Structure formats: structure tokens, C-alpha cells
């Protein structure tokens, strides 16, 4: 027992990563025999325990530890793999475990009876492996590997129902868009490697790190590196304009969406930026902040009119990720991480709740043979009566999302907003636009999540069925949700429900802000926001529950919002069509021009052979005309040579001889 108790955090952290991998391998080998998911579940439970007890408890607020192993050597540079445990990484690892665990439990019930369930568990374990590995990578190259693997697992899970056309479209889109980000990441790695010669995070950014020690003569290159990493983060964290894959990714099973596309994977971008934060200079940070705010605003705007419950949540996720990006952009990456953690819980919960609802709706659809989309909120309504527990849990999550006091979302969102105001005031001028927009976004957030809750749970059930056979989900689904609901409340993070400064997560990081704290903001903003949220809900209540909808449902703005700003259409028309056209053009070019050239060369050679045969046959032609006055004889010759007439042969030979003589005379 002591041996187990003395297990070093490094070993434990490695096991945390390896357990899901083992589970993946075992399930892969077992194939269809591993339907229950027990293996995956056991692996994640063990991982969570290890991560919590032996890693997080040891390292959090303690001394960072790391270990490095050589992997391979190219030329004179050795590439390493390693585990880095510091506050950031252990927090991330634990978070992934803690979110993944309830999702696993939830999935047991949610995915029950699916014919491909063995694949599901396999993929889920693979995802956990990749995500956990990502969180504790010491080396950027290694991180990149896990980064892509995460994307791959996500691809598999989005396309889990591979017979569904939209699902396979979506997973392709997700992977390719993520690939764009990966390229950024890769180029970023290439830049760092070519400037500093190492990819080790500690060697780069540690206290003695080369980043601080080396004088770089090309500051532009470092800016480029920063932008490249941000590009990577943009794709993974679905930042405008690369956010398009995330709403589509909702084609995957809802449990997957909750784990991957709400809580963990999409947050990896934020995590990456936090890990390489020292790299960013002021310009890059400003870009990050701007992209963040654009994302937050546009996604919130799109969320307003969506009718698919999961899409609303997806846009909400994008919007919240935008918040985190802004936090990073202003330098408050601790706030970003804090929001990442709190968001993970409540967003996961929202998805699981939505999943429960969809589950019931799908049952309803199947049992009545309805032609409805089980995810369409227009078809729902009044579910409060049938699924009260789900309603309560989702309400908590929604409050947290809206940043209502006493929830965790309140703390983290305030942290970001207040810091942003402080930052903007510090810089003054146009910078103020950013926090103002974010304030509006916060209010919109409250509004659209309110709309979701009202439409789903209030009013009357809107699908015409003889008997509404919807009921509460089972315990194996409710319990994980309840757990997440508890985690969405303030006390998990801070005993002080008002001030984020006391939050434990917050205290784990020591970030030096470039701006001063403004105390008055800490009071005004929370109160103002809460009030605004209440007003937004009131309006929402009137519009959606009391059916006093004042707007033209078909206005341009609405349509613009519903169609997600036509960004997808735009991409389809430009990028996709463009590259396909380019591809076709390239192929046409290849087939007709290049190959044609070769074949043409062949034809040319054949022609040449004909020509030379022709020369052979009629050579005397042009030459002779110009030669002497023997027009008759020569004209005769050129018609007759080499078609078997002996004298033409002789004539030809002697004519060439004559040409030779003439050549001699003239030289």
C-alpha cells in the first residue's frame, strides 16, 4: 500500500494518460464483444482518481515537476517527450477527467442499444487518451501530436453515425477546418524550432528558458509564431472565422458533444495559448482579443434565432470561447482558464440536459412515427411538467451561463469582463469598444439561453401527438447531470460568491497584469449585468412564453442570424467550390496540357518520323527548287523519290552529293 501511496505524481500522470489508451486498445481488440463500456468506464474512473489524488493534490499550488525522455535524434537535435506538471496542466488534466467521468456514465444509458456502441466506447477512450496527453505534454511537438489525435477522435465521434450523410459531411468539415489550425500550429512549431532550436516548453518558457535568454533579431518572426499558434487555437476553439465546423459537429451523439465540443477539446485552444502565453507580444494579443470579441458577438447573435437546441448550445460555446480568447488577449489568461473550467461544467451539463430532452423526443418520434426533428425547439414546450428534474438542472446551468450570482459562471465571467474593462480603460480610446461589446454579448447570452429554456420547458407542448409519453431520464443519466450541476455552483470554486479573486482556480496562477485594478468596477459590473440579465429574461418570458412576439420572424436580420451569417454558404461558394474548381482545372491541365504535351511529343516524334520519311521521300523538294534550273528533272524527282523507283534513289543520293559540293564551293 505504501508503494501505491508513494507513487510519484509524474508516474501517476502518465498512468492517467495511459489508462484510457489501454482501454482503447483492449476494446479495439475485443471489437464487438466490448459493448458494455465497462472497460472505458473503469479506465476513466481510475484516471480520475489518480489524477485527483496523486497528481492534482500533489502539484496544485506546489512545485512544478517535469520529466523528459529522449525520443529520437535527427542530425544533432534530439527530440524529446516529457511530462510537465504545473498548476495549469494538472488543472486541465483533472478537469478533463472530471468532465469525462460523468459523460461516460451518462453515455451508458444514453447510447444503450446503438448497434455501433463498441466503436463508441473505443473512440471515447481514444479521445480521453489524446486529451489527457495533450494536457500534460511538456513538448510542443508532442502536444501537436495529441492535438491532432484529439481532432481525429473528434472526427470519429462526429461521424459516429456514418450512414447519416450530414454526419459524415460534418466530420469531414470539422477535420479539415481543424487541419487549417494544425498547419498554423505546425508552422508555429517550425518557427520556434528554427529560432530557438528546441520545442520543450520548460526550455523555451521556463525561468532559464531560451525565450528570455535569446535575443531574436527578427521580432516579426516571433509575431508570426504567435499568430500561427493562435491560428491553431482558433480552429480548435472555433474562433471566427474558423468556427463553422462546431455547429455542424453537433451531428455527433449528444454525450460526445458535451464532452468534446463543449467542455474539453474546444477549450484546448485556450489551454494552448495559456501554455505558450509568454510568446505573445502586444500585437498578437490585440489580434487575439479582437478575434475573441468578434467571435463572442457573432456567435451570440447567431444563437439568438437557432431552432436546433444543440446548435444554440454550440453557438453559445463559441461565444463563451470568444470570451476566453478576449481574456487571453488582454493578458488575463488566468481568468480565461477560470472561465474555461467553470464553462466546462455548466456547458457540459447543458448538453447533457439537452441530450436527455432529445432522447425523449427521439423516442416520441419513433413511437409515433413522426416526421419531426427531435432537436428542434419549436417542436418542444412545456417539458417542465414531464421532466422537472432535468428542468431544474438545466436552469442551474443556464443561470451559470448567463452569469447569475451564486453560480460559478458569475465568478468567471465577471473576472473576464472586469479585467477587460480595466484593460480597456488602461489603454483608453477605441479599446473600450471591446468590453462594451462584451457586455452586450453577456446580455444576449442571458437572452438566448433564456429563450431556450422558455421554449423547451415552458408553455405548451408543440408537437401534435395523442399522448405525450415523455418522462424523466433514468438515474444513470440524471446523476452525472446532478454532479455537474453542483459543480456549476459557486462554492466549488470559491467560498465567496461575490468576488472571483478568492476563487481557488484563480489563485493557482500568478499572472502579472499590465493594467491596474479599478475597484469600483468590481461592484458596478456584477450588479449591472445581473440586472440586465433579469431584464433580458423578462423580455424573453414575454416573447416566448406569453407569445407576445413583436418581431418579424422573417426579417433580413433574423434570416442572417439564422443562417449563421451565411458564412457557410460563403465558404462553400468560395473555398470549397474554389478548390474543387482548382482541382478540376489542375486535372484538366494535367490531362490535356502536360500529358498532352507528352503525347504530343510522341505524336511529334511520329510526325517527325513522317516528316523525315517525307524528307526521305520528297526531300529534294524545296532544296532543289532553289538549286539550279533543272526544274523538270528535279520536280520529277521530288514526286517520285523513294517510292520504289531506283532512279529516284540515285537522283536523291546524287542531289545530296551535289548539295555537298555546293557547300564546298561556297565555303
Amino acid at each position: 500500500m505504501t508503494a501505491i501511496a508513494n507513487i510519484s505524481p509524474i508516474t501517476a500522470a502518465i498512468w492517467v494518460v495511459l489508462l484510457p489508451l489501454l482501454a482503447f486498445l483492449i476494446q479495439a481488440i475485443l471489437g464487438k464483444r466490448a459493448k458494455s463500456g465497462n472497460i472505458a468506464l473503469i479506465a476513466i474512473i481510475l484516471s480520475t482518481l489518480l489524477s485527483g489524488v496523486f497528481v492534482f493534490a500533489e502539484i496544485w499550488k506546489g512545485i512544478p515537476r517535469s520529466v523528459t525522455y529522449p525520443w529520437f535524434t535527427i542530425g544533432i537535435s534530439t527530440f524529446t517527450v516529457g511530462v510537465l506538471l504545473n498548476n495549469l496542466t494538472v488543472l486541465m488534466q483533472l478537469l478533463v477527467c472530471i468532465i469525462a467521468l460523468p459523460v461516460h456514465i451518462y453515455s451508458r444509458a444514453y447510447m444503450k442499444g446503438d448497434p455501433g456502441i463498441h466503436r463508441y466506447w473505443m473512440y471515447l477512450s481514444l479521445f480521453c487518451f489524446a486529451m489527457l496527453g495533450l494536457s500534460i505534454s511538456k513538448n510542443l511537438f508532442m502536444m501537436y501530436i495529441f492535438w491532432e489525435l484529439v481532432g481525429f477522435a473528434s472526427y470519429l465521434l462526429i461521424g459516429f453515425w456514418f450512414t447519416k450523410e450530414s454526419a459524415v459531411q460534418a466530420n469531414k468539415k470539422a477535420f479539415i477546418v481543424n487541419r487549417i489550425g494544425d498547419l498554423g500550429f505546425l508552422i508555429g512549431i517550425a518557427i520556434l524550432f528554427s529560432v530557438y532550436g528546441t520545442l520543450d516548453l520548460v526550455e523555451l518558457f521556463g525561468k532559464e528558458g531560451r525565450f528570455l535568454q535569446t535575443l531574436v533579431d527578427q521580432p516579426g518572426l516571433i509575431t508570426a509564431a504567435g499568430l500561427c499558434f493562435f491560428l491553431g487555437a482558433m480552429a480548435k476553439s472555433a474562433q471566427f472565422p474558423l468556427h463553422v465546423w462546431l455547429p455542424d459537429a453537433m451531428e455527433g451523439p449528444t454525450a460526445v458533444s458535451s464532452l468534446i465540443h463543449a467542455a474539453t477539446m474546444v477549450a484546448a485552444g485556450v489551454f494552448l495559448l495559456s501554455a505558450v502565453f509568454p510568446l505573445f507580444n502586444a500585437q498578437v494579443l490585440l489580434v487575439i482579443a479582437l478575434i475573441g470579441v468578434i467571435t463572442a458577438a457573432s456567435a451570440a447573435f447567431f444563437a439568438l434565432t437557432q431552432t436546433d437546441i444543440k446548435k444554440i448550445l454550440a453557438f453559445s460555446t463559441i461565444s463563451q470561447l470568444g470570451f476566453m480568447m478576449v481574456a487571453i488577449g488582454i493578458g488575463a489568461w488566468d481568468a480565461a482558464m477560470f472561465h474555461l473550467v467553470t464553462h466546462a461544467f455548466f456547458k457540459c451539463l447543458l448538453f447533457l440536459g439537452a441530450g436527455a430532452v432529445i432522447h425523449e423526443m427521439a423516442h416520441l418520434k419513433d413511437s409515433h412515427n413522426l416526421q419531426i426533428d427531435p432537436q428542434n425547439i419549436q417542436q418542444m414546450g412545456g417539458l417542465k411538467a414531464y421532466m422537472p428534474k432535468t428542468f431544474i438542472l438545466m436552469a442551474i446551468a443556464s443561470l451559470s451561463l448567463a452569469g447569475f450570482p451564486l453560480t460559478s459562471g458569475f465568478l468567471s465571467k465577471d473576472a473576464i469582463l472586469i479585467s477587460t474593462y480595466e484593460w480597456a480603460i488602461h489603454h483608453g480610446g477605441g479599446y473600450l469598444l471591446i468590453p462594451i461589446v462584451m457586455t452586450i454579448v453577456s446580455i444576449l447570452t442571458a437572452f438566448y439561453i433564456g429563450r431556450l429554456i422558455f421554449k423547451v420547458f415552458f408553455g405548451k407542448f408543440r408537437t401534435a401527438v395523442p399522448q405525450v409519453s415523455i418522462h424523466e431520464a433514468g438515474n444513470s443519466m440524471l446523476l452525472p447531470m446532478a454532479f455537474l450541476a453542483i459543480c456549476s455552483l459557486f462554492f466549488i470554486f470559491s467560498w465567496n460568491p461575490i468576488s472571483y479573486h478568492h476563487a481557488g482556480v484563480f489563485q493557482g496562477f500568478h499572472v502579472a497584469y499590465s493594467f491596474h485594478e479599478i475597484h469600483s468596477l468590481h461592484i458596478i459590473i456584477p450588479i449591472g449585468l445581473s440586472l440586465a440579465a433579469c431584464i433580458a429574461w423578462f423580455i424573453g418570458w414575454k416573447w416566448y412564453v406569453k407569445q407576445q412576439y413583436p418581431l418579424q420572424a422573417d426579417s433580413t436580420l433574423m434570416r442572417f442570424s439564422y443562417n449563421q451569417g451565411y458564412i457557410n454558404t460563403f465558404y462553400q461558394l468560395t473555398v470549397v467550390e474554389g478548390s474543387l474548381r482548382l482541382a478540376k482545372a489542375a486535372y484538366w491541365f494535367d490531362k490535356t496540357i502536360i500529358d498532352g504535351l507528352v503525347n504530343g511529343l510522341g505524336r511529334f516524334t511520329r510526325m517527325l518520323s513522317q516528316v523525315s520519311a517525307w524528307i526521305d521521300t520528297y526531300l529534294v523538294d524545296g532544296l532543289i527548287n532553289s538549286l539550279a534550273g533543272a526544274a523538270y528533272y528535279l520536280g520529277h524527282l521530288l514526286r517520285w523519290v523513294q517510292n520504289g523507283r531506283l532512279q529516284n534513289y540515285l537522283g536523291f543520293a546524287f542531289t545530296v552529293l551535289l548539295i555537298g559540293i555546293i557547300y564546298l564551293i561556297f565555303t
Partner: protein
Amino acid sequence: MISITHFLVVSAIIFSIGLYAIIAKRNAIMILVGIELIINAAILNFVAFGRYDKLNYGGQVFALFAIVLAAAAVAVGLAIILAVYRKYKTINPDNITDLQD
């Protein structure tokens, strides 16, 4: 005094006649005749030049050999033309064109 130039001019004329016969005559025998003419032009040259080669008499010797060889060649040529005539019933080379490209 007949100089070397005279010989050369005569031989050149014979040569040209021979060449003409080879190329222009529509009769295989005439071609043979043309060939003979050229050979004779050459022989004339040899003999003429041989006058200056008192040591070896190379020209004369060459002329003799050339005459012999020309005769042999003409004999063979005539035999072949005869064979052609048997098959083709003509000795106009323009009509004997089974072999062609």
C-alpha cells in the same frame, strides 16, 4: 599538243553523259550503259594522269583492273536485268516498284 586538260574535259563530259543516263533513262540497260560511261570516264582520267606517274604506273594498272571489274559488274547486272525482265516483262525501273516504303 593534247594537254591533260583536254583529257579531263572529255572525261568530265563522258561522266556527265553517264550520270544523265543513269538518272534519266527509262531503261535498266541504259542505266548500265551510263554506269559504264562513268567508269570509262574514270579510266580515261587514270590513264591520262598515269602519264605523270612513271614510277609505279599506278594509273594504268588501276585502269586495267577497273576495266575488268566493270566488265564483271556489267555481266552480273545484265543477268539480273534479264531475271527481272522474266518476272516483270519490263525493264523500266519506274515500273518495278513492288518494294517501297
